[in-house]
Each structure stands twice: as structure tokens, then as C-alpha cells.
């Protein structure tokens, strides 16, 4: 099991990974794509049985390596739909492509805040929940009506995760549990051994939460307090990076890093390390299924969403990506690998989740953060 889970960990960190990896995956997918072709035979069995034959092709635009390779042939078998894959490396990458007028994608999986942006720009089709009986039945109500799509009109949750910090348990003697601990250790003993994500929302938001404010605050006074904390922290930061910190913590060049749970799990699979969701709270993000405007086969997109909302199929996904499942826990528990279910990085205790907030920053808040972020970096 340890061996196997390590390979799973290694894959899971690709979500926010490098172009090279995504390009390679795209290449491999292109090579392997045709194998799925003829698998749409009659009488395919599904676990729910109620799977409708849809046919055609599903053009799926996604983060690299964010779907269990086993899911594609199973889906094709159940629905007769072939899957064509394409990958993006950041939400902004996806946004740029869709806003430049790219059409032909039937399904994509951006992060919540980008769902809102794309929706406001009129780039998304409506979701027809009557075609999603599995999702209707099995989704944890926590993942309905999320702030970025308050009426569940254009998105259905795919995966979720948190923003916290990872630290090396062998290099850090203390056992930090809060954002205050993180700041204190960074400004004290572990000065110049700490990295931050290159993201104004994550860094400023976590600081706001430490001060007892909302992650999404747009109150100038509160933001000013956060700025002061950050300016004090600045001289102790080793680097600001979203892509290199995993390797830096694994190599021991950094001891503590503000980051995402998938990356934390990656570090923990290589070295003694612990990922912390801070006591005060923090961000939880949700990547959601959306149907881009101009989709030629929205039925296939609905079929995919409905397919992966079968608890068994969803367990297969979670066992591969190691990101949280939006399916009700009591439904996924009996069908998922117990080792994965026990992993608190993947399934944090619900008590912890109640304090977390999703990114929902207003344009005004974005501009205020941008100035603070510039000042912080320039300090």
C-alpha cells in the first residue's frame, strides 16, 4: 500500500503543475485516445444501471492528470461517449482561451472564482439538473449553492481542497496548528526558511483569517491590519512561489510553506511532513464542472457528471487524485479504499471545514489586494 499510495501522491500534485507535465499527459492521452474508441458496445453494465446511452464525443478541458485513467473507458462503456481530452495549467489559461472565443469544449473544471468570472462573461451554458439524478441524490448539500454559483445554475462541484501550510516534522520541533503559529515561527526560529504561495488571495486571505476577519474582506481597515502583519513577515520569507515550494520543502531548503493540501500530501509522501488546516480557518476551494458556451454535446457533459457522481465511480476518482470528494461521506465510505478515507488531508474532519471559506473576492477587494500585494512584494 505505501508504494502504491506514493505513486498516487505523485500524480496528484500535477493539478497546479507544470506545462511539461500537462504537455506530456496530453501527448499520452493523444496516443492512448483511440483505444477508447470502440468500447461503446450494447449492454454495458453500470453500477447504477440507470445510465442512458448518449453517444458522440465529449471534449473535456481539464487540469492535467485530474481524472483517473480508468474512468474514461468505464464512462465510454456505460454511455457510448468517446472522450477527447485537452489540458490547461491555470484558471487564467482556461479563461483566456474561452474569452478569446474558443468553442467546441463540452466540459471544463475551473476553480470556483473562475466559474463566477466565466459566468459573468456569459461563457457558460446552464446545467440541467434533471439530467443529473446521481448528483441530485448523492451530492453533499455543503456543495450545493456555493457562493460563486448561488443557484446551482452553471456548475456542479468536482473536487475540493484547502489552503493551509505544510511543515517538515523533522526540521520543525514545534507542532504549529494555527496561522498565528505560522507567523510566529516564520518571524522567529525559522526565518528565511518559509515560503508563500504567489497569490494575493491566498496570502492576504489567510492573514485576514488569522486576525479574525473574513477571507474575502474588502474592509480597508481590516486589509490594512493584514498589510501590517505581512510587512512584518516579509523580511523572513525565503521565496514567494506556487510552483517550486514542494521541491524546496522536500529538499529541506524551506521548512514551512503556505500551500495547498495536494502539494502538502505530495511533500508528506516524500519526507516526514504534516499538512495543517489552520485553527482559525482559511480557504477551501472547489473545482467545478461547467459546460462552456458553444458546447456541441451538452448531453455528453451531463452524462459525464452524472456518471462520476455514482459513489463507486467517485471513489475511483478520489483514490487517484487525492482531492476531496463532494459526494456524501456516508455514501462514499463503504466503496472507497479505507486507507484513503482515513487520510485527513483528503477527508478533513467536518469540524475543521466549518470555519473555511471559499474565495469570493469582489472587484473592489481584488484591487485593494493587488496594491497590498505589490507593496508587500516591493518591501
Amino acid at each position, binding site marked *: 500500500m505505501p508504494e502504491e499510495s506514493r505513486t498516487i501522491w505523485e500524480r496528484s500534485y500535477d493539478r497546479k503543475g507544470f506545462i511539461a507535465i500537462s504537455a506530456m499527459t496530453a501527448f499520452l492521452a493523444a496516443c492512448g485516445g483511440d483505444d477508447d474508441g470502440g468500447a461503446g458496445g450494447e449492454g454495458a453494465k453500470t453500477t447504477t444501471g440507470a445510465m442512458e446511452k448518449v453517444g458522440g464525443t465529449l471534449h473535456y478541458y481539464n487540469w492535467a492528470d485530474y481524472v483517473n485513467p480508468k474512468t474514461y473507458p468505464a464512462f465510454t462503456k456505460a454511455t457510448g461517449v468517446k472522450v477527447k481530452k485537452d489540458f490547461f495549467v491555470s484558471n*487564467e489559461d482556461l*479563461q483566456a482561451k474561452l*474569452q478569446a472565443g474558443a468553442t467546441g469544449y463540452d466540459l471544463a473544471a475551473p476553480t470556483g472564482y473562475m466559474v*463566477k*468570472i466565466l459566468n*459573468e*462573461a456569459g461563457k457558460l451554458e446552464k446545467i440541467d439538473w434533471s439530467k443529473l439524478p446521481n448528483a441530485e441524490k448523492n451530492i453533499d448539500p455543503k456543495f450545493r449553492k456555493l457562493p460563486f454559483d448561488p443557484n446551482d445554475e452553471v456548475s456542479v462541484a468536482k473536487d475540493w481542497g484547502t489552503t493551509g501550510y505544510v511543515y517538515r516534522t523533522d526540521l520543525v520541533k514545534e507542532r504549529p496548528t494555527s496561522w498565528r503559529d505560522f507567523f510566529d515561527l516564520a518571524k522567529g526560529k525559522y526565518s*528565511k526558511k518559509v515560503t508563500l504561495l*504567489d*497569490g*494575493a488571495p491566498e496570502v492576504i486571505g489567510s492573514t485576514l483569517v488569522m486576525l479574525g476577519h473574513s477571507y474575502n474582506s474588502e474592509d480597508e481597515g481590516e486589509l490594512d491590519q493584514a498589510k501590517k502583519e505581512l510587512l512584518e513577515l*516579509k523580511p523572513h*520569507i*525565503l*521565496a*514567494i*512561489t506556487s510552483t517550486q515550494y514542494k521541491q524546496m520543502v522536500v529538499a529541506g*531548503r524551506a521548512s514551512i510553506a503556505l500551500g495547498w493540501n495536494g502539494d502538502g500530501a505530495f511533500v508528506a509522501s516524500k519526507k516526514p511532513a504534516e499538512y495543517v488546516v489552520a485553527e482559525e480557518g482559511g480557504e477551501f476551494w472547489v473545482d467545478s464542472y461547467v459546460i462552456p458556451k458553444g458546447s456541441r454535446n451538452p448531453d455528453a457533459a451531463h452524462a459525464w457528471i452524472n456518471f462520476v457522481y455514482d459513489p463507486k465511480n467517485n471513489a475511483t476518482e478520489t483514490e487517484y487524485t487525492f482531492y476531496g470528494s463532494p459526494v456524501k461521506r456516508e455514501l462514499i465510505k463503504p466503496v472507497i479504499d479505507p486507507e484513503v478515507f482515513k487520510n485527513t488531508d483528503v477527508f478533513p474532519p467536518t469540524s475543521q471545514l466549518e470555519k473555511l471559506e471559499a474565495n469570493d473576492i469582489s*472587484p473592489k477587494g*481584488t*484591487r485593494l*489586494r*493587488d*496594491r497590498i*500585494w*505589490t*507593496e508587500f*512584494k*516591493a518591501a
Partner: protein
Amino acid sequence: MSVEASRLSLRRRRTVTAGAGGPRYPGWLALPATAWYAFFFLGPLGILAVFSVSRREGYTDIVYSFTLENFRYLWDPLYGDVFLRTFGLALFGTAATLLVGFPFAYYLARYARRKTLLLLLVIIPFWTSFLIRTYAWLIILSPDFPIFRALRDAGITSEDFSLLYTREAIYIGVVYNYLPLMVLPLYAALERMDWSLVEAAEDLGDTPFTAFRRVTLPLVLPGVVAGSLLVFIPLTGEYLIPVILGGDLTVFAGNLIAQQFVTARDWPFGAAIAMVVIGAMTIAILIYARLTAREVQYGG
């Protein structure tokens, strides 16, 4: 007198080239270049100018209007510092590459035996992506690199000394990456030098230094100008070296612009910053060109 003379000769030269003596080229030959320039330079520049006076509304929408709001927002000591720092970096990079590059180019043009080989060594780095070469410096600047380990073991540097993710790392990266851009035009100018002129000056009583100042320098000045511009201009937009080698701990104009376009999604503000950079650069270059042009005239 001499100023007048050189002006005269310049004017005469111009009439010669523009006159009927030389071969005449049909004007349409310039069409591809002009079209390219209009489409890929003036076009985007115009779009940028329009964006810079527009407003952002909501998360991404650009509302076309005429407002100076973006420029007013830029009028802030914070952004002033960013521009000054950028100017400083560009100035440093130009001076440092000139200081390192000139003796090398001079040696290469005047004394070197294996010119082709040495020139090849200058060019070879271009065969690899800029990004990969910069990432390679992460390994060299790491505290685990043998040189730094040896220095540490010998007690010369302190236990936690590290160049990685410091301003010095940015400076090293800048000099390394931009050096060939300086060396090549310098070499091209020095290569055309008629060294017998220098010898003549020395025969007539100039010290080697005076001969260099009065003969060599004025003759290779166009190369110095070309090299300086090639280094200075892209440096004002440099943003990858500070991100990779500087740990993204400082902000230069390039980073500020990228931040607006990619993460803050405020294209009008990003466009305004870009316009200011372009404007400031144009002024700086005009002044520079003016100063060096005068130098040529008097020096000659």
C-alpha cells in the same frame, strides 16, 4: 570649426546616399516590413493605448471610455518606487555588461587568435532556452553548490550564507543573460576598427589612454550605443529573472504589468503601466541618443 565641418560632411554624405548615383529600389520592397511593423507593433500599441484610458468593470469587462483614472492610480509613491527600481536595474545591467563586455570584445577583436571559437562560445548559450539557463542558475546559486560548500567549510562565509533568492542573485542573472547582447555589437564595431589609426595617434604623441579616448572610443561609439540599447530596453520589462532567481521577493515594472494581466485581471491598469514604461523609456533613449550624438561630433 570642427563642429561645422563635421556637420557639413554629414550633410554631404546624406545627399550622396539620397542622390541619383546609387541603385534605385522600388518602394514596394519595403511593403512586407512596413506591413509587419504596422500589424505587429503599431496595432498592439494602439490597442494598449485604448485600454490604458478604459475602465475595468466587474471582474474582467473592459469598458471603453476616456479616463485618466488608471494613470492617477499609478501616481502613488509605491509605484514610483517600482519604476525607480526598474530604472536602476536596467541602468545597472547596462553598465555592468558594458564593463564586463567591453574588455572582452576588445580582446576578441584586436588580439584573440581563435576568434571564431570565442565568438561561438558567446553565442552558444542562445541555443538553449533562456528559461532553462536561468533555472540552471538555481543550482549554481544554491548553498549546496560545491563552491559555496567549500567557502562555508573554510569558514569564509557564515553557516547560513546563501545567494539564492537575493538581489545579488538577480544582478548575477541579469549580467549573465544580457552579456551576449552587449558583446556582439561591441565586437562588430571593434572588428571594423583600423588599428593603424590608434598606432598613428600614439606615434604622434598620444598616450595609449588618450589614443583610446580620442580615437578608439569615438569610432566604436555606435557599437556601445547599440549594445546599451539592446540591454537597456528589454531590461525595463524584465520579470522572469526576479521571479526565478530573486524568489519573487521584489517587484519590477515587468512583474507589475504581468500581475495586472494575469492575476489581478485588470487589463486597463496593466496597459496604463505599460504606456508609462514605454513613455519613460522613449524619453530616456532620446536623451541618451542626443548625448552620444554630440559626443560623436565633438570627438571626431
